[in-house]
Each structure stands twice: as structure tokens, then as C-alpha cells.
């Protein structure tokens, strides 16, 4: 439980604090593997979004978003419900293409290529940029077949190669020990937390560089949630992770960098410690201290 010292102060004090740059907020300890004070400017960028606007039909929901995601780090997207976090995340693997009548302007550079261009092969892009959803979505197949799905779609037929890949992905997703004796059983029989880790393993099996997670733990119990958080700490050594979360403690525990969205605008982005202890924008501070949202 985080108690922000801020909320204990009197309104007058609070007002004074809000304008002072030295606001002190207590944040929970980070998970192993995440350095919240890391200097991002030294990291090469994995994703660079520039001047991004997004529309559902006539309805614009993202306004001129500029965000750089450093390689091998965790970036948390926070903000009140409906502010456009998921929409932004889903433009990074062009998932919004599947929704009729959407439009996006601006550019998103991944490995130097603007993925918004029509010439981009979204199938290849999505192998490079994996995604994990809020609701775990195991296919009604065996555990093995779930993880082997991506490689099989990509044309891998060799049973031994698939078996190695399935094992290594399940290990990376911290699920191997629990399921190694029942790979042939239906994935639907796993618990919610196991299903979500299976979905992470399945995403890893296409060998992505980037992993997008949309509130991956919001439907899980606290124990499963903390397993996922630990896992994120381990994965970020090798993968670039962007995670949407409505849970601010979670954002502060698992991310190097936090971006605060509000009503379709990226209000502020910075090292997680800074965002949670001395945000530069009043809106950010109001949000993380729980004054709205």
C-alpha cells in the first residue's frame, strides 16, 4: 500500500507543495531488474513516435503524441480510463488496422522504419512486436500448441525445433516448471495467472524484440500479479516492454520510464522515479496523488 505523504498535508500546504519542485512522494520498491533512475538518454531508441494523431472515424482520440521508448527497458503508460493508452499501444503493432474506419497520422519509427507506411507488412511487424492482452486469450488448444502457434504460422514444422522453442519460451515466461508434465493438456484448464504467462510465452515464441502489454495483470489476483511483475523485471533484460496499467503502484514498481496520458495528450514522460516524486506537470501530480481518475 502506498501512502503518498502529499495526501497527509493540509490543503494550504498541499497548494504550496504543488508549485514547489521538491514534492516528495513515497513509491514502493521496484522489482528486481528495473532501475527506475536509469538515464534514458544514453539508451538507443526501440520505438520513436512522432506527431501521432489517431481517429476513430471523426473522433480524434490521440493528439500529437511524441514518445521515445528506449531499448531493453520498461515504459509504463498511465492515465485515467479512456485517455487513449490502449489506442496508442495498439498503433505500435498496427492492431488498430483491424478496426473499421480508424485513421492515424504522424510516424512511428521501429528500427529506423516508419511502420505507419502502407508498404509495411503488418504480419512481419507483429512478429517483431508481440502483444499480451488484458483478458488472457489462450487458444482452445493444448499448452504446447498454444506456444508453438506463432512458429508454426511462420512455417516451422520440425517437431524437435518446436519442442525446444516451446520449452525455452515457457521457461522465459516462468511457467515451464508448472506445466512441463502436461504440455498436451488444454490451455483452458490453466489458472488465470498461468494463462496470462502462457500468453506471454506464446508471444515470445515469435521471437519479438518488443513486447506490448495492455493491463496484463488487471484481471489477476495479487499473487499472480506479482509473478507477472517479477517476470517483467526479468524480461526487460532482453526485450523492450511497453505496458499499460491503471495501477500506479504497478507502474512505479515495474517501469524505468513512465508516460502520463490525459484526454488523448501525452502530458509528461520521464524516468519513473521522477514522475512519481517530482512530476513537472500539475496534471500529472494531481493524477498520481489520486485527486482524479
Amino acid at each position, binding site marked *: 500500500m502506498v501512502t503518498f505523504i502529499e495526501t497527509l498535508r493540509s490543503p494550504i500546504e498541499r497548494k504550496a507543495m504543488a508549485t514547489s519542485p521538491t514534492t516528495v512522494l513515497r513509491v514502493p520498491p521496484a522489482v528486481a531488474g528495473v532501475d527506475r533512475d536509469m538515464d534514458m538518454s544514453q539508451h538507443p531508441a526501440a520505438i520513436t513516435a512522432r506527431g501521432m494523431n489517431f481517429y476513430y472515424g471523426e473522433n480524434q482520440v490521440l493528439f500529437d503524441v511524441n514518445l521515445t521508448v528506449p531499448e531493453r527497458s520498461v515504459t509504463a503508460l498511465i492515465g485515467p480510463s479512456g485517455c487513449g493508452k490502449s489506442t496508442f499501444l495498439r498503433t505500435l503493432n498496427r*492492431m488498430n488496422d483491424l478496426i473499421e474506419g480508424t485513421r492515424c497520422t504522424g510516424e512511428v519509427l521501429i528500427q529506423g522504419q516508419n511502420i505507419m507506411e502502407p508498404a509495411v507488412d503488418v504480419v512481419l511487424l507483429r512478429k517483431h512486436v*508481440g502483444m499480451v*492482452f488484458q483478458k488472457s*486469450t489462450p*487458444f482452445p*488448444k493444448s499448452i504446447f500448441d498454444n506456444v508453438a*502457434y506463432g512458429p508454426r*504460422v511462420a512455417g516451422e514444422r520440425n517437431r524437435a525445433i518446436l519442442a525446444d522453442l516451446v520449452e525455452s519460451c515457457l521457461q522465459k515466461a516462468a511457467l515451464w516448471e508448472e506445466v512441463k508434465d502436461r504440455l498436451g493438456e488444454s490451455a*483452458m484448464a490453466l489458472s488465470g495467472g498461468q494463462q496470462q504467462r502462457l500468453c506471454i510465452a506464446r508471444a515470445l515464441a515469435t521471437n519479438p524484440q518488443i513486447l506490448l502489454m495492455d493491463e496484463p495483470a488487471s484481471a489477476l489476483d495479487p499473487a499472480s500479479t506479482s509473478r507477472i511483475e517479477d517476470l517483467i523485471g526479468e524480461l526487460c533484460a532482453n526485450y523492450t516492454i511497453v505496458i499499460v496499467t491503471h495501477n500506479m503502484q504497478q507502474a512505479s514498481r515495474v517501469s524505468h520510464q513512465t508516460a502520463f496520458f490525459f484526454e488523448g495528450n501525452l502530458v509528461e514522460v520521464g524516468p519513473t522515479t521522477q514522475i512519481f516524486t517530482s512530476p513537472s506537470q500539475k496534471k500529472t501530480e494531481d493524477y498520481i496523488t489520486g485527486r482524479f481518475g
Partner: protein
Amino acid sequence: MSTARPSMFQRSRSANPKEQLIHVLLLCCALVSILTTLGIVVVLLRSAVYNPGPKTAFFEEVSLGEFLTDTRWKPVERSQLSPEADQGHFGIWPLLSGTLMVAVIASLVSVPTGLGAAIYMSEYAGPRERSFLKPVLEILAGIPTVVYGFFALHFITPMILQPVLKHVFGIEIGLFNVASAGIVVGIMVTPMIASLSEDVLRSVPRSLREAGYALGSTRFDVSMRVVVPAALSGILAAFLLAFSRAIGETMAVTIAGGHKVLFSVNPFEEMRTMTGYMVHQSFGDNSADSIQNKSIYAIGLALFVITLSINIASQWILRKFREVYQ
């Protein structure tokens, strides 16, 4: 409001006899179909299995064992006087083989096309194409089956089957044959498979499709590796319903399938089906108590049992399918 008269909203039983009358009338409507089914079952059982009156039922003269195992169907009265060669035979296999041949050929035609159409409508077509295709399919499903019968007899056999078989394989076939009957029944049940399968495909949650796309699948991958497997039991139920419809189909197979009572698996033979036999025998001038007449009920009962079991199986599978995605 506390000042309202207490009787204002009170329900008075006698005040709405009209409501009660409507209730009873609607109940009667529902009962009609149930009672009809019961009536059919009673009539079938009385003539086929057990007749409480002075007359005998079919299975009181012919044993069930013979009916199910004999491969000859020669419905003539048995008599002590006639020589062995002229004795009646009552094995269901010749008629059953005709029926199953039609149903299997119909499935070979309708399963791939029906499923393909369903995948197109549910995974590929936009709302505009779908709003055009659905009604067209329903119109196809509404064409009288006699039309399909003549379509087989005057188009499929002479224009397609006969020339193709003659020029490509050097086989001559007759105008009446099981293949044309099966093909036309397949065309007939395709809309049914398409429509039922499309319903189950569309009930696969969108989240599964998104998960598939997010793993780098093409639309075809998502259709064939995610959506169809997830809907497999529902699709199977649709196939079974169509199969049972093909088994019960009468008019088209009577017209196109021919008249020969033959135990065979050659699709180019002329073969009479169970339903075709029932139609044929009903037009004959046999007395009500003749074995020929009673055999209609025995065959009818067999059809009823087969289609009922298939329908029950498919309902059961569908219910299981719905439980998964509830």
C-alpha cells in the same frame, strides 16, 4: 404516493379473462406440434412394431435381426406355397446404402463449399457483402426440392456427369444415378451448412482473433488455425444437421436417383433410397394390411430413428460448444 386508493393497482383475477384466453390459445399452438410428433410416433410404432388389434405389425412378421442384416429387399408376401426363390426378403441394406450414398456424396459437396462460404461471410466479407449474401442463401434454401430434382435429371447428369465421365474416363452411365442425386442434395444443403456454420464462427470471441493477428497471422491463418478449430464442435453439429437433412430428403432423390433396389457403393448406379421407396410404395395399390404397406412404416421408423439420433447428437454438441464461450 400514500394518498392513492389502495385498490388502484390491485390485480383482479376475474378482470382479465382475455389474458387467460390468450394464454390458453398460445399453449394450444405449442401443443399442436408436440402432439403431431407424438401422433407420428404412435402410427409408426403401431404399423411397424406392435399392433394391439387383430392385425399384425411389420416386425411381428419379420424379425429385427433379418431387417438389420439381410442385404436383399424384396417386399412380397411370404407364403408356404411359393418356392424358396420367390420368398420375400426384408433387409434394409439396399435402401439404406442408397440413402447413405446420397448423404455421403451430398456431404462431400456441401461440407467444403458450405464451410468455405461460412468462412468467407464471417472472416472476409464486409458488412455490405454479408447483408447481400445472407438473404441470397436463404432464398436458395427456400427453392422447392422438386426443382432441384429436375435440375439433377436435366442438367447435372446429361450436361456434366455423362459427358465428363464419357470423355475423360470412358464410362457410360444412365440418366438415373446416385451421384447426381447426391450432388444436387449437396447443393441443396449447402446454404444450411453455410448459415449454421457462420453463426458458430461469428460467436468465436473477437479477442481470440486479435490474439491470432498479434502473433503475426494472416487472415487465412486466423480463419483456419484459430477460428475454425475454436468453432469445430459447432461446425460439426451443423454438418450433422445437414447430413440428417440429406438422409431425409425425398423429392430430389426420388426423381434423380432412380428406381433400382440395389445394395451397392457404386455412385453411378441407379439406386432407390429409403425415402424413394416410401414414396413409390405409397403410390402402389397394395391393401392396407399387406406386408408392402407395412414395410413403409418400418422404413419410416428406421429413418425416424436415424435422423432423430443425429439431431440429438448435434444438439448435444452445440450445447457443449455454447458452454465453452458463455
